[in-house]
């Protein structure tokens, strides 16, 4: 059983966004990087599958600058066996990232490729289906429940619950496959002290990303227009009447 987990380091979700001098990117000063929360669900699922099987290999794969290695160590501390960092400077678009990952994952005997359903920095939700398309594999996205019949091996049948608007879509497919994790799939573990120590000895292989040419170009990044502070219409239940009046007459929303 061999599972790849695609990880992306992203700014922690409590980051206050500041724009860099060029006006195109987030100012990285003082920003702490974490594993993309959806990728943690993907990694947890891989670790659970490996534990259930009693053996197997979980490999982390990421695309980016050498500084990403530090965040990837957290994934190794959670229990992944090894990691591959596909080196690239500057920001790549989703198709470039997918190309680099697909080139790395191709023909290496992976039974399952797990990703997060989106990265919480660019919110693009593109990489998982793109990898699947480039490798000719089935892909289930926004997966909140995953069941694999028997061993995680080529030819095994998998069933997934995908979240769609106002409901659940149940899908079936055959491994090898790409699965993109949604919140709710599992509860990601915290690294243990033993895991953190062990991670220091695990290997992070580095090689250049085969990303190809960009298809998108970031022109600018700005802060959203600030909301003007509103007003407290009152205190306690006595303010309800006034609230209903302003919602009807000023805001015209009820």
């Amino acid at each position, binding site marked *: 059983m061999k599972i790849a987990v695609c990880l992306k380091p992203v700014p922690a979700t409590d980051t206050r966004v500041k724009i860099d001098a060029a006006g195109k990117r987030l100012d990285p000063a003082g920003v702490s990087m974490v594993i993309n929360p959806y990728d943690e669900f993907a990694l947890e699922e891989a670790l659970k599958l490996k534990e259930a099987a009693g053996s197997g290999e979980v490999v982390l794969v990421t695309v980016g600058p050498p500084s990403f290695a530090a965040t990837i160590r957290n994934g190794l501390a959670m229990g992944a066996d090894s990691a591959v960092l596909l080196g690239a400077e500057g920001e790549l678009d989703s*198709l470039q990232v997918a190309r680099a990952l697909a080139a790395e994952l191709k023909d290496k005997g992976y039974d399952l490729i797990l990703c997060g359903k989106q990265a919480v920095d660019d919110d693009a939700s593109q990489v998982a289906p793109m990898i699947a398309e480039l490798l000719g594999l089935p892909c289930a996205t926004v997966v909140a429940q995953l069941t694999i019949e028997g061993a995680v091996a080529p030819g095994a049948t998998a069933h997934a619950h995908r979240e769609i608007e106002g409901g659940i879509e149940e899908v079936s497919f055959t491994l090898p496959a790409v699965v993109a994790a949604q919140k709710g799939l599992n509860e990601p573990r915290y690294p243990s002290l033993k895991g953190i120590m062990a991670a220091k000895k695990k290997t992070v292989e580095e090689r250049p990303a085969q990303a190809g040419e960009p298809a998108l170009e970031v022109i600018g990044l700005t802060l959203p227009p600030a909301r003007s502070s509103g007003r407290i219409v009152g205190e306690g239940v006595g303010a309800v009447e006034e609230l209903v009046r302003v919602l009807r007459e000023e805001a015209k929303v009820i």
Partner: protein
Amino acid sequence: MAIVVFLEQREGEIKKTSFEAVAEARRLADAGLGGDVIAVIACAPGQEGGAAQAGAYGADQAWAATSPAFASYQPEGYAAALVAAQQKAQAGLILLTAGALGKDLAPRVAAKLSAGLASDCAQLDLKDGRLVATRPVYAGKAIQQVGFRSQVAMATLRPKVFPLTEHRAGNSAPVSVLEFSPVEPKLTVTKISAATGGPADLTEADVIVSGGRGLKGPEHFGIIEDLAKALGGTVGASRAVVDAGWRPHGDQVGQTGKTVSPKLYVAVGISGAIQHLAGMSSSRCIVAINKDADAPIFKIADYGIVGDAFEIVPALTEAVRKLH
């Protein structure tokens, strides 16, 4: 340069948000992009009739890719149909809706066509004849503008942001058959359990009433549900209460949950962590009810009441009911 717009259907009924995309394509074509607007539907045979309605929103033609397998979503087949449409039309732009289906389908098509794809766009513009997409990133904490370097550009449009303009009211688009090479499905939909007749999904709701830790326990969400019902809205939740297991994760608003922009957002017992504010601060009108007058939520709320939610919310529900 033709524009292809994908029409999302369920049981032959086309989603309104797809017509928002058709109307936007028409606006871009008239604003200088030029070419025909072609609406493409993938559905089971006999379900394609609804595609004609795209004419009212500005589609010149509607093309139908039909297959018995298309009664439900079939990723590889739908992607093959869209690629066939792009090639037949020599389209330079493909638009889809950024719903669950569009977000799954668009990247597959983009990978096939080596197309740049801008996800979940809030605005499209032509600047010096070139398409520029404006899209929220970091769950709305920042706004990114992207241009395209690829021959074919693709964008998914955030639902309910683009106006549903009937550019050609009363028109219907001629529907013709789109030939495409059938592909072996790699994934099949076995069942859809949809909450039929229930409240709208958070991303499509006009009114959202969200509860946070101030409600003290899952058993108190009844007052949130009652207010949501009285307002014709959908229930949301903060991350804290989802992580505590009080509400399903599908209810979560904010970063690692849903980004929403309803007409009215009522936050009850939610202090307003930055991750929550990111996901809802583009709502048109925000009401906060919280016992802590210093809670950050009041800094972005249009209207606030300071006090006990357990008294205020039922009184508000009663007052709203009386309006009807």
